[in-house]
């Protein structure tokens, strides 16, 4: 379909918290943008009408603000093309990719390569995140202005923290000139040492070196203090410890410009899973204790957590089929996140759908300063259509991602994605949802 074609999504439940919409409505799309949202819109001749399947929910497109697409340099784990294919299959219309590639995304050339690959793939939007420091070495600032001009939306040394507090301070001040948040992987490296699992009972019994929660909490506290000092926004990546959440709450109460994200695995799984040494339970930050999971759920309910992000970290199966302490950290998340959120947050009664849309669409767009997050007239027609009652069985072997490293393989979950649209164009249809083929605009 060409962008000038008018398309009508007819008859779904629309959840658009920015505009206070939660009810039956039609969505009119023209030229790749939303033009009207309202009940029983008239259909002009020449409009393609998509009947939204019964029970499905039309939402502003979900944005995963924390993924690793591995290109350039680690194409055996994932490429931009396979990563965005996984994204749209998981209901994400946009992803922000971390700079720990090889070479590191610390120059315009790498940023442009990623954007060119994303344009070729033509599926999800890709927002590159540049490095805070050259080579992510933590020694001198990367050329943040150049990265901004090339298309980066934020900076981060994700995978490692900005260990030097003085450098972190300057990064916050400098990036704010370009309206870019600094996203920090909060971990005191001296305290974390060569730990591989949450320091607690289970790691102790299993003889695994510990990563204490304090290593995360200390840097979260430091970053909030530095954000207060500089007045610049800081975003806490993949928060996992209850003490870190307490610090964020306290910072927000004081008016500090701190935001944070949590991953689906950190609000569903605990360190009890380590028994058996399955390396698909190895990630950094590590799975923590039940009280931490409870705290994350609490933060999702009360609004102190801003975003859900997957920290999609693909690895080749060879790399994970090793001794636990030698395996790389990280799991994939793009193709499981929405089902986990629907099952474990919405159906479990922790949050209503409108709050989930804030966590997955509204707030990520705001934190990154990118378009999206709402269905206002003129907004890009990036749309995630949910099938909240769909029975989903996670099947890693069927992932679009090149990688299979998920702890959720075989899980049965309630709720999934029916279709994904980017710029008014359908980029994914889930044929398991009855009637979802109506989204197939090639028909």
């Amino acid at each position, binding site marked *: 379909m060409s962008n000038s074609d008018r398309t009508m999504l007819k008859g779904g439940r629309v959840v658009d918290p920015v505009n206070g919409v939660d009810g039956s409505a039609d969505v009119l799309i023209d030229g790749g943008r939303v033009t009207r949202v309202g009940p029983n819109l008239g259909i002009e001749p020449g409009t393609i009408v998509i009947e939204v399947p019964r029970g499905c929910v039309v939402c502003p497109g979900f944005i995963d603000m924390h993924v690793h697409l591995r290109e350039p340099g680690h194409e055996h784990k994932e490429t931009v093309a396979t990563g965005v294919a996984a994204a749209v299959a998981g209901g994400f219309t946009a992803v922000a990719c971390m700079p720990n590639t090889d070479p590191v995304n610390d120059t315009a050339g790498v940023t442009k390569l990623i954007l060119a690959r994303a344009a070729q793939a033509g599926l999800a939007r890709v927002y590159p995140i540049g490095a805070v420091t050259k080579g992510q070495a933590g020694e001198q600032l990367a050329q943040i202005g150049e990265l901004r001009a090339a298309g980066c939306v934020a900076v981060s040394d994700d995978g490692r923290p900005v260990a030097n507090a003085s450098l972190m301070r300057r990064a916050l001040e400098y990036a704010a000139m370009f309206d870019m948040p600094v996203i920090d992987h909060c971990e005191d490296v001296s305290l974390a*040492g*060569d730990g591989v699992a949450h*320091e*607690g*009972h289970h790691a*102790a*019994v*299993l*003889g*695994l*070196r*510990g990563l204490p929660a304090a290593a995360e909490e200390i840097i979260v506290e430091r970053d909030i203090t530095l954000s207060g000092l500089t007045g610049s926004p800081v975003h806490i990546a993949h928060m996992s410890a209850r003490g870190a959440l307490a610090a964020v709450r306290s910072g927000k109460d004081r008016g500090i410009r701190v935001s944070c994200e949590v991953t689906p695995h950190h609000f569903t799984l605990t360190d009890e899973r380590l028994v*058996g*040494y399955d390396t698909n339970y190895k990630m950094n930050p590590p799975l923590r204790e039940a009280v931490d999971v409870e705290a994350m759920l609490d933060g999702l309910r009360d609004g102190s957590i801003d975003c859900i992000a997957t920290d999609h970290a693909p690895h080749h199966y*060879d790399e994970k*089929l*090793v*001794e*636990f*302490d*030698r395996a790389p950290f990280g799991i994939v998340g793009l193709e499981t996140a929405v089902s986990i959120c629907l099952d474990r947050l919405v159906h479990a009664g922790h949050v209503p759908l409108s709050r989930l849309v804030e966590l997955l669409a509204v707030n990520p767009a705001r934190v990154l300063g990118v378009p999206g997050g709402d269905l206002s007239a003129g907004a890009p027609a990036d749309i995630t259509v949910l099938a909240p009652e769909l029975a989903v069985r996670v099947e890693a072997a069927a992932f679009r991602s090149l990688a299979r490293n998920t702890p959720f393989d075989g899980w049965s979950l309630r709720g999934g994605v029916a279709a994904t649209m980017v710029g008014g164009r359908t980029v994914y249809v889930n044929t398991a949802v009855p009637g979802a083929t109506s989204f197939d605009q090639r028909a």
Partner: protein
Amino acid sequence: MLPTADGTRHAAGMPLAEGGRSSGAPPVLETPAGLRAKDLLSIGDLSANEILLILETAEAMKEVGTRTIKKVPTLRGKTVVNLFYEPSTRTRASFEIAEKRLSADTLNLAATDSSVVKGETLADTVRNLEAMAPDIIVLRHGSAGAGHLAARLCRARIINAGDGMHEHPTQALLDALTIRQRKGRVEGLKVSIIGDLLHSRVLRSNVLLLRALGAEVCACGPATLMLPDMPRLGVRATTSIDEAVEDADVIMLLRIQLERMRGYFFPSLREYFQLFGMTVARLRRAKPDVIIMHPGPMNRGVEIASEVADGPYSVILEQVANGVAVRMAVLYLLAGARQE
């Protein structure tokens, strides 16, 4: 009964790997011999009854070592691979002697003279060995859970001979055999384990085993070398060596693992010995019939004074002797007993 090499029978009452059973065997051996789990990766894999079965079997195995011809045909035709990624004297020698006394065909592979030095992964090494159809792989490795990985990849039974800081199950079993030999029981004894608790796989296996058999376990060491939440393990933790020694029936000293000291755990070996070293003077608080154990290798003058190690309370060499019997029992119960 075990058949001897010359075909005569002894009164030890062992069930046979092949053939009939003595009607006079102890009741515990009358139950279908063998262990539920495919592998021995952790003491946690064993029920209390299975621990007792191994100990009873080991008692019977001890007799084999007293014969002129120290060999029985129990594991004839079985192939056992000893795959050692870490240096070892006692454990490796003990397993190999145990295997040979049971007539198994043994193969010793050390990481330093195998494809490991060419960068082969553990998974590939294990799968390649598996292709040659061994019955048992005895694995010593520096990473916790290495045996779990190997067990997932092959049908051969895995015996964990020490995996990083995780466990060393046969060490705990031989310790229990030694305690029972000296005390007649494990239940109700006060067992104090002193030393580097944090990095010790011997501690982890012993805590599980001693608690399963009803001992009272006290763990003592510097605060920097404690495990988090020791009470959850059923262990009383103290930094006072006098408190640990007080009325102890068994004192087990753990090696200060200089090779695992990646951090700053105590200022000097000298100060460690002053605060936590086991000396003759300190021993006076213990029960008069206390026994002193050490899994080896010892750092004399660090965790244990030579006078204690070589003194009348020491059962350290009995532990080593019992190691062979316990490993024979484990090999027999895993490889010999069940498949019939």
